[in-house]
């Protein structure tokens, strides 16, 4: 990958046996003059990005001001979600706008999914090395 950045898998719980680490990407989210360092779970099986309620609040988002509803599936289907757009910076790559389903589901990770994280970034997973590589999308 051209100009790729490597990151280690994050150890989440050593009591989980073999499934003890996941690909969490550090990134900086910005909105309304607020900036926040977060970690997002790279989830190629997720149709969309998902923003936990608490993180949205820390970014200055106001639930009542975001009126575009989003319907999610699976564990998240029971909770209301609304569409928001925030600025995202990964490593030293150019910042991009990421659209998120801002959910009221409690205790969930920030999820980076197909729309639109994987539209903006190319990722290689090296699970055997517990590492992954990220670079901005290659156009042309």
């Amino acid at each position, binding site marked *: 990958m051209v100009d790729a950045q490597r990151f280690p898998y994050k150890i989440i719980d*050593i*009591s*989980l*046996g*073999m*499934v*003890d680490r996941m690909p969490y990407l550090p990134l900086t989210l910005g909105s309304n003059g607020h900036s926040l360092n977060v970690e997002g*779970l790279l*989830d190629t*099986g*997720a*149709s*969309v*990005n*998902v923003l936990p309620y608490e993180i949205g609040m820390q970014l200055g988002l106001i639930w009542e001001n975001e009126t*575009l*509803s*989003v*319907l*999610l*599936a*699976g*564990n*998240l289907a029971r909770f209301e*979600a609304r*569409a928001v*757009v925030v600025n995202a910076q990964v490593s030293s790559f150019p910042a991009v*706008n990421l*659209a*998120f*389903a801002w959910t009221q589901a409690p205790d*969930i*990770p920030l*999820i980076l*999914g*197909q*729309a*639109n994280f994987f539209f903006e970034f190319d990722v290689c997973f090296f699970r055997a090395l517990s590492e992954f590589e990220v670079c901005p999308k290659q156009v042309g």
Partner: protein
Amino acid sequence: MPLVELMSQIQTLPRIDKLRLMQFLATELIKEEDVNFFVANQEYPVWSPYNCSEAANVLMNLLATKQQERNG
């Protein structure tokens, strides 16, 4: 890295990191002895919003709208 060099570096770690290292090594050794991928009675949450193509359309349309507002 030679083991002797690694051990000298480990000696400089704070106590809590040494304990975490012991925990890590114990887990690694257990994995080598037991190839079961899952731990009995342990929860493995799956949060993926899968098969949400309509949700993806909503978000991408919002992005396009924001882009138009920025360009207009």
